[in-house]
């Protein structure tokens, strides 16, 4: 049996839980799947999970589990896992999972495989793919011990819409655990205001990046149209983000994000080395620049020397045909 640990806050289910369920379904083969949900009370999140009909929903409710603390979760889950004895415990690689999963694994002396992006095989025989060296390498790993293990799945690596829903709702069972409140050492404070939802350019398959050649903020739609026509994310070099024309999380380069999409289109980017280190791993690089000596052409697979304001609209017209 595969046990998925769902994640909720204030009764709302974390969307990454669905991705962990998809990964768990793949891992289960035809084997049984159960979902555990912890909290002060079962609530709407449990109903939502049950309605999907993917497997029995085990609710673990205790006043000591609200708000979340790593000690409380580890105490409750250690008991649940010991009694349910799943083959694999699956979680989404969220901040919360990163917080308690290592402690849980240590408590139960179980192997922990983190940030998994792919699965080969199923159950305890599965081999997992996970990134190393900041995504430069993908390693295939397998726990050394034959028994159960914990696995966390990278967010975005499995598509939530690939979930195979059941035809009828799953049963819900409340599992009793005993938590001594004095064993909880953390006193959580109100959560920080989370930063605005950042785009994760590292997940994009296609990127259109603009540089200083775009000249003015009101010219950005030229690039936006191309990005839309290509189904690409819009990104930029440092000067554009520094001027506030695009948010900082869209900056590519040594002081921004490092990306390696299938296709990278650089518009009016000269290709300072600080930018190149952030995108040179892209599979195909297309550069459009007026200056034939621009260093971007040294890394480009296809280069067009010319005025982006003429070339880009032509590209868009062709793509929209």
């Amino acid at each position, binding site marked *: 049996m595969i046990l998925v640990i769902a994640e909720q806050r204030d009764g709302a289910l974390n969307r990454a839980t669905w991705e962990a369920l998809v990964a768990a379904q793949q891992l289960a083969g035809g084997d049984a799947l159960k979902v555990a949900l912890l909290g002060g009370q079962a609530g709407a999140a449990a109903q939502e999970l049950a309605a999907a009909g993917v497997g029995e929903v085990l609710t673990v409710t205790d006043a000591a589990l609200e708000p979340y603390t790593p000690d409380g979760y580890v105490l409750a889950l250690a008991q649940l896992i010991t009694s349910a004895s799943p083959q694999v415990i699956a979680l989404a690689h969220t901040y919360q999972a990163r917080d308690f999963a290592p402690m849980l694994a240590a408590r139960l002396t179980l192997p922990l495989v983190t940030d998994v992006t792919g699965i080969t095989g199923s159950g305890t025989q599965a081999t997992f793919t996970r990134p190393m060296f900041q995504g430069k390498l993908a390693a295939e790993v397998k726990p050394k011990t034959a028994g159960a293990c914990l696995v966390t799945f990278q967010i975005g690596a499995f598509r939530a819409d690939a979930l195979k829903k059941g035809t009828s709702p799953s049963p819900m069972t409340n599992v009793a655990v005993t938590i001594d409140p004095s064993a909880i050492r953390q006193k959580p404070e109100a959560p920080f205001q989370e930063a605005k939802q950042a785009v994760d350019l590292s997940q994009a398959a296609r990127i259109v990046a603009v540089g200083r050649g775009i000249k003015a903020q009101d010219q950005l739609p030229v690039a936006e149209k191309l990005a839309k026509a290509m189904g690409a994310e819009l990104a930029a070099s440092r000067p554009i983000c520094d001027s506030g024309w695009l948010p900082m999380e869209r900056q590519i380069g040594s002081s921004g994000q490092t990306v390696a999409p299938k296709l990278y289109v650089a518009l009016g980017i000269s290709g*300072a080395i600080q930018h190149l280190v952030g995108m040179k791993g892209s599979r195909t690089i297309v550069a459009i620049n007026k200056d034939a000596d621009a260093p971007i052409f040294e890394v480009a697979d296809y280069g067009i020397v010319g005025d982006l304001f003429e070339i880009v609209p032509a590209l868009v017209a062709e793509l929209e045909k």
Partner: protein
Amino acid sequence: MSEILDVDVLIVGGGPAGLSAAIRLGQLQAQHGGEPLSIAVLEKAREAGAHMLSGAVLDPSALRDLIPDFREKGAPLAVEVKRDRVYFLTSKSRIPFPIIPPPLRNHGNSIISLNQFVRWLAGQAEGHGIDFFTGFAGQEVLVDGQRVIGVRTGDRGIGRSGEHKPGFEPGVDIHARVTIFCDGVRGNLTKELLRRFQLGRGRQAEQFAVGLKELWEVPPDRLEPGTVMHTLGYPLRHDEFGGGFIYALREGRLSVGLVAGLDYRDPLFDPHMAFNRFKQHPFVAGLLDRGQMVRYGAKALPEGGWNTIPQPYMDGALIAGDAGGFLNSMRLKGIHLAMRTGMLAAESAFEAIRAGDTSEASLARYQRKIDASPVKAELYPVRNVHQAFGYGLFAGLAFAGLSLATRGRWVEDLHGHAGHERMETLRSYYGASPASLAASNATVVDRRLTFDKVTNVHFSGTAHDEDQPPHLLVHTEVCSSICGPEYGHPCMRFCPANVYEIVQEPAGPRLQINASNCVHCKTCDIMDPYAVITWVPPEGGGGPQYNGM
């Protein structure tokens, strides 16, 4: 309200001066016993030595006095100097000096990486139980009346527009009985002290230069390790102070650099382009042929000498090292003087604390110690030499020779002007406004031998969190209205890291400050003709990463 930390001695800056002070304090404590003193060192770099940049040739005299068994303790003195060469360069050829001028004789000295040397010093200091806070910059001097009582460290986690980010942490007030300022050339805190306490009263204007350096890897048979070469002349003109250097380390590593006086007249002069031209000289290009540049850095140097050193003591505080201008520009050396003044400052602070009196009168013992030390013996005789170069290269050379012959006995001292005041306007230097504001000494950038500033910056390892307020405070209203027409935005050229860019916009030229490129060299704070640029430390931990420099 900031948190307060009380210590006996606070040392601001973990370079050779600050760490020598810390080690000396640790030694004095061990020697004399008594109530242990609490000693803290603040360093803005993320790790010891990361912001250290120098040529560098070390005169080991102060090191020998500080740590006599430095060899057994593994001091990283890379290679002993084997031979000295001095050349005068013309644009195509070189003329060797028939004899090596005595100040440039380096017998017994070692070529070092200051980065590695300071990292080692930090280890020695920590052996004495000194608290070394890396990643914390001194933001502000704390003063009670006329007394310096400590330093406030910078806040962390402040966003670009001043808002608190999730990781916000306010700075800490560190109170000390004696604060020793070793914040380096044009230190932001020492600058504040000089102004507030008028410590430069009766002294001459400070003088500076900027040094640019690259570390190269070339085929190992190119130069014998331990070879030290200095050049005068090309690419600098006779009224421009400075010169080039090439030091041969082991395994084909060459330290290549150019020092340019920050008192040039031509507003279109670009020190970085001068460095490119130096490398293009047939002699230098030959040495670097088929080599690879692996690191880049830039840093200002205090060049004014003895007569420009401010009063280095005040109520509750002392100044040591480059912050006080303790550098011998004739020997091109300052590390040993930084170490020596750090040691003397430590002794002064220790005695004053033990005597229970850290007033200005009590700390004046520091000046007496300096006067009785090798620091004055070395700096006093050559006190006029840099100023003489203000009259041109040949006058300077003649004067330097005369100083050596007479040991600096003069009736009257020469005076220098603050370097930024010597820069001339476009109209005065060129007669009319030039068509282009490109550097007057611009040259080809091939990205093999010569580089643009942005590429070089990459090789300085500089990194700053982009989401923080700019740490270069500029009164930008001067830029397009006055400075553009008069001087043609010299900040674009004197900054060796492309921090300052003039972007042409429909509304007119706008100064764009790429603060995250900053390599903390301080040139802008020194050379801006209107003195409207103030360098303040960015969030602690940011800045260059001078591994091996």
